[in-house]
């Protein structure tokens, strides 16, 4: 009996939490949409864009560069064995712009930005600053969540482009300087195989990754328990939640994009 009671209690708690999270998401999205058309909120969005986006550029660029460089090192032997080393750029650039650039940039952002958002909002929650906002007749979701969410939605795709660029540059430099691959051939093959579609769909993932990361991090901050341990636990849960969500979104996004691609260009994928 006790076990059934416990399962029931856990299920009800899970459903309640899901309901709360869904409500938070819908309020966050509606508030963000409204904030987008409210010029008085632009300074808030601007400040968040600086904190979230501008300060993340160096770490995102370093991540991108190392991804491109390590791909060149790892893939060279296999391709050189078949005499296809000049096509190394195809492999590196496709992998970087379609998958590794967006996913690793988003994971890096979830750690850097998501953790900071949860810690900041969690501390505000614990010290009653969120209640203070509410008590002054200001919607805390509109004032605190919407600017952060908009900043993440707008800037994650742009940061992914930075990661892509550095990945491509890192791969090129290692291939040409260290592995002595012909530069013109490397660029030529790469240009033939990487399409604008690949770059755009890769970067557009950022909107979903950024949105998921922002809403999960803000939710965890808003609902964190009291004390230093509560804030710490909320940060961990926010990162793990964002990470899993990014990977899951990436999978479903790949299925959708592949279907769209084969619908519009049915023969091209066979070539």
């Amino acid at each position: 009996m006790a076990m059934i009671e416990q399962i029931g209690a856990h299920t009800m708690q899970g459903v309640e939490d899901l309901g709360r999270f869904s409500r938070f998401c819908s309020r966050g999205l509606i508030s963000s949409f409204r904030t987008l058309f409210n010029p008085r909120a632009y300074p808030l969005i601007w400040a968040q864009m600086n904190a979230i986006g501008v300060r993340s550029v160096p770490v995102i660029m370093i991540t991108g560069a190392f991804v491109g460089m390590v791909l060149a090192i790892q893939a060279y032997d296999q391709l050189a064995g078949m005499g296809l080393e000049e096509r190394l750029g195809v492999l590196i650039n496709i992998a970087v712009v379609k998958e590794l650039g967006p996913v690793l940039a988003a994971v890096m952002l979830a750690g850097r930005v998501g953790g900071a958002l949860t810690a900041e909002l969690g501390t505000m929650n614990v010290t009653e600053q969120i209640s203070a906002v509410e008590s002054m007749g200001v919607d805390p979701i509109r004032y605190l969540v919407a600017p952060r969410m908009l900043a993440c939605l707008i800037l994650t795709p742009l940061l992914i482009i930075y990661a892509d660029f550095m990945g491509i540059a890192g791969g090129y430099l290692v291939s040409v300087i260290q592995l002595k691959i012909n530069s013109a051939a490397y660029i030529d093959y790469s240009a033939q195989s990487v399409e604008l579609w690949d770059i755009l769909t890769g970067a557009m993932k950022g909107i979903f990754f950024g949105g998921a990361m922002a809403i999960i991090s803000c939710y965890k901050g808003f609902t964190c328990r009291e004390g230093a341990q509560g804030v710490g636990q909320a940060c961990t849960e926010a990162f793990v939640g964002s990470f899993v969500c990014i990977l899951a979104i990436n999978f479903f996004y790949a299925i959708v994009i592949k279907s769209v691609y084969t619908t519009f260009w049915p023969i091209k994928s066979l070539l």
Partner: protein
Amino acid sequence: MHKDVHKDDGIIVVQNVTKQYSGRTVLDNVSLAVEPGKTTVIIGKSGCGKTVMMKHMIVLERPTEGQVFFKGQRIDHQHERDLAEVRRHYGFCFQMGALFDSLTVYENITFPIQQKQKITDWNKMDELVKQKLAMVGMDGFQFYFPASLSGGQQKRVALARAIALNPEVILYDEPTTGLDPVRSDIINELILKLQEALKVTSVVVTHDMKSAYKIADRIVMFHEGRILADGDADYIRNHPNPIVQEFINGQVSESELAPIRMGGTRFETQFHPEDFKPSNPKKQGQATGS
């Protein structure tokens, strides 16, 4: 103790409010009418529901059952958007100040005004901030960040922020907690001064009896989610209920001291003769392992 209140009996009326968290009752069918222009002090032991009660008055918490009225208008079921308008008539002074630590003192005080209207005349705003800070004796601290202020100074700035929109009601959540006796008295004097100068209605949650006697027109004592005593300072001082007397005199009852004084360790596996009595089938079932 329970009496019926009507929605027009006070500026804030809490009517038959019950609040439960995960099945645990924190407020149990409480009714209270706050008289306008007076200072009502809510006292009680930690965890008795007094802060929860205060949060219901501004609908930062919504009741499980019952209703809350502000100036005769029901507010507990209102949408957040409509509540925003109602909340502008309130000033809330939080226990730890709850100043926004990323903003300066100046920005903290202008925050509620900026959210209400677009500020065009910044000279006028400078004057207003100066005036509000002067009222709490903190003029000159405009460009300090909260982290560089002491606990008492933070509470005074929080008070200045609470009166920024000239509220009709100021709610104080444990305003003297964590302060030394001198700083506590400064806060008490400020509450009295604001009461006289602004003619506001004040509700103060505290367990500092010295402060309660000094500022209260009316003292309401909470115990286990219910109102135990309600009257002026003299009434509370002479209340015959031992729980009230223990609280106001800061004495602990013998029953509460018993676990501290008890020696040795009681093992939970130990059986008692009453566990085996047929009149207690549940315990008997447990004892026989069924």
